[in-house]
């Protein structure tokens, strides 16, 4: 994933490039610059929203809310965090708000869209299908489905850390910026999230074996 490259030089280049886009939009009202920001980050925001909410429609709402708010408030972006972290912070608030609005949702277990036999979720496709046998693909899809369900069973603020650090490949600093917490808090939440998810995951596997 090219956009997950977090080398310092790459990060500095990205920040410079983003800074130019932000300035063009803020100073000249250049909508093409904002379009470039969307092109660059919409997939990351969608992926985050999907992994947080588990539904394609919710992920789309998260992307929409994020970019509408970014359009309105980009003038307030000070560049202390990266543009991606700033957008993820808006997206993270949108995910938590979305969860609160789902009044009928169980407090603990958020059911994800059924992935079906192929393991594809929403518009997600299983990775490297050519290298796996059909049996492997089914097994992989089952394990990934259990993982998604286990992640859904933990509080959103812990899930966000796990999604950003483990699945999106953000550094501790970037995750901290995206969630508005300290790097120390990221470490603590990551450890607790891993422990909670694995416990849920194990109990689902045992439940399946006993059934």
């Amino acid at each position, binding site marked *: 994933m090219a956009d997950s490259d977090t080398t310092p030089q790459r990060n500095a280049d990205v920040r410079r490039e983003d800074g130019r886009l932000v300035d063009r939009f803020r100073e000249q009202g250049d909508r093409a610059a*904002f379009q470039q920001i*969307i092109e660059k980050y919409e*997939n990351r925001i969608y992926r985050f929203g999907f992994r947080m909410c588990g539904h394609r429609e919710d992920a789309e709402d998260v*992307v929409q809310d994020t970019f509408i708010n970014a359009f309105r*408030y980009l*003038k307030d972006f000070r560049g202390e965090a990266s543009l991606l972290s700033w957008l993820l912070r808006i997206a993270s608030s949108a995910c938590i708000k979305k969860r609160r609005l789902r009044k009928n949702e169980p407090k603990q277990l958020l059911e994800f869209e059924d992935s079906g036999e192929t393991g594809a979720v929403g518009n997600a496709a299983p*990775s490297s299908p050519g290298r796996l046998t059909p049996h492997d693909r089914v097994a992989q899809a089952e394990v990934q489905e259990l993982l998604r369900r286990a992640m859904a069973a933990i509080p959103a603020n812990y899930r966000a850390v796990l999604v950003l650090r*483990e699945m999106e490949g953000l550094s501790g600093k970037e995750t901290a910026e995206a969630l508005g917490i300290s790097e120390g808090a990221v470490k603590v939440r990551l450890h607790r999230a891993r422990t909670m998810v*694995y416990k849920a995951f*194990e109990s689902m596997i045992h439940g399946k074996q006993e059934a």
Partner: protein
Amino acid sequence: MANKKPEHRHCAKLLERMSAYVDGELGADCCGELEKHLAECPECRSTLEGMRRLASLCRECREQEIRQSPEFKARLRALLTEQEPPESPRRKKR
């Protein structure tokens, strides 16, 4: 990962360091202490394996392609085209 509560008196304290150990972020002194404990505690070894397995599963998910539909992308662009441009303080001054 075992679901039982750690029995060893050091387990709870060391469990807090397990994530940092999995991420290679634990200092040499702490690593030594943890590894010594792991050698004699099957429950913590099991927890470590669990953490590593979870990290590996999450990494596999990184490769999973999750994309928006072209219809949604078009809708998003249309919606943003309709938005009034925000009033920039810098532009106001000019």
